[in-house]
């Protein structure tokens, strides 16, 4: 397999164009299944009542917020090391969706916290480090829009993301390292799930839906960025003529 083949903007543009509708449909179907499980199959929680159902979006959104940041750091490192154009494009395409899902995680956490903890917000380690993650996303987006020159802008954004990536393990382990109001993890690799099977099925289905959604929007955004950056090339000119 020749990886350079997939790194070419032309191949990427065509391939991504085929993946986007599939990923979008998959996201829709999985979200419908996940919501059905979350609202109609999963029972009422014996401690938390009905408000616990917020976790069906809170947990997937929080996971994706961190994962997308890791993906950004990965593409940033590839971009800096190999000066790959497509890597920087992927980075830029990931950031808005990561910011959005991190915001969703914070929002749903707040409306869960109010009935459960009696407060919308506390400055505990988990919540604070997640807020820092949102600011890292917003800071990177602001940095990109502030630097005119594309090459310098790409590199500055990649550098900032690589520095900011230390925050991800802090979020992950915050509930272990510090005494947080936020509960510890119910699902993990080192222990059996501390959650009923139906509830976990709902969370996992919604997580897959979030993956598919992220793939669809990120690839769609990356395609637009490819066209913009390659607009002087023959293949983009051809596409533009075809669509006009």
């Amino acid at each position, binding site marked *: 397999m020749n990886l350079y083949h997939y790194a070419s903007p032309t191949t990427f543009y065509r391939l991504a164009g085929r993946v986007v509708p599939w990923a979008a449909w998959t996201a829709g179907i999985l979200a419908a299944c996940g919501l059905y499980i979350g*609202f*109609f*199959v*999963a*029972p*009422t929680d014996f401690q938390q*009542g*009905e*408000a616990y*159902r*917020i976790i069906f*979006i*809170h947990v997937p*959104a929080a996971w994706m917020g961190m994962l997308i940041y890791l993906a950004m750091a990965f593409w940033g490192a590839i971009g800096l090391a190999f000066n790959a154009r497509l890597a920087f494009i992927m980075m830029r395409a990931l950031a*808005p*969706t990561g910011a*959005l899902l991190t*915001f*969703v995680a914070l*929002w*749903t956490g707040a*409306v*869960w916290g*109010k*009935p459960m903890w009696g407060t919308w917000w506390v400055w505990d380690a988990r919540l604070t480090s997640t807020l820092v993650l949102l600011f890292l996303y917003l800071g990177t987006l602001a940095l990109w829009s502030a630097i005119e020159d594309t090459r310098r802008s790409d590199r500055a954004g990649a550098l900032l993301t690589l520095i900011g990536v230390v925050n991800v393990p802090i979020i992950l382990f915050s509930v272990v390292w510090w005494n947080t109001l936020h509960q510890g993890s119910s699902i993990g690799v080192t222990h059996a799930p501390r959650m009923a099977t139906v509830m976990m099925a709902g969370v996992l289905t919604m997580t897959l839906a979030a993956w598919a*959604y992220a793939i669809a*929007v990120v690839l*769609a*955004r990356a*395609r*637009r960025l490819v*066209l*913009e950056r390659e*607009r002087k090339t023959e293949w*983009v*000119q051809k596409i*533009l*003529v075809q*669509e*006009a």
Partner: protein
Amino acid sequence: MEWASWSEFWSMGGRGFFVWSAFGVTAACVLAEALLLRRSARLSRRRLARLQRWDAAPEGADS
């Protein structure tokens, strides 16, 4: 089935405001992102096509 009636479903055991504002805001965010993305893709293509016509036009010609 967990719910005896639709009104019981919407009230979410008295926590309806919290549950539905969580799901509502999430749905709004996701839909807004998808729609804005589609719109910006369309506008970007239109702009690129215009730039292309402009580049192709002979020197000094109005296009």
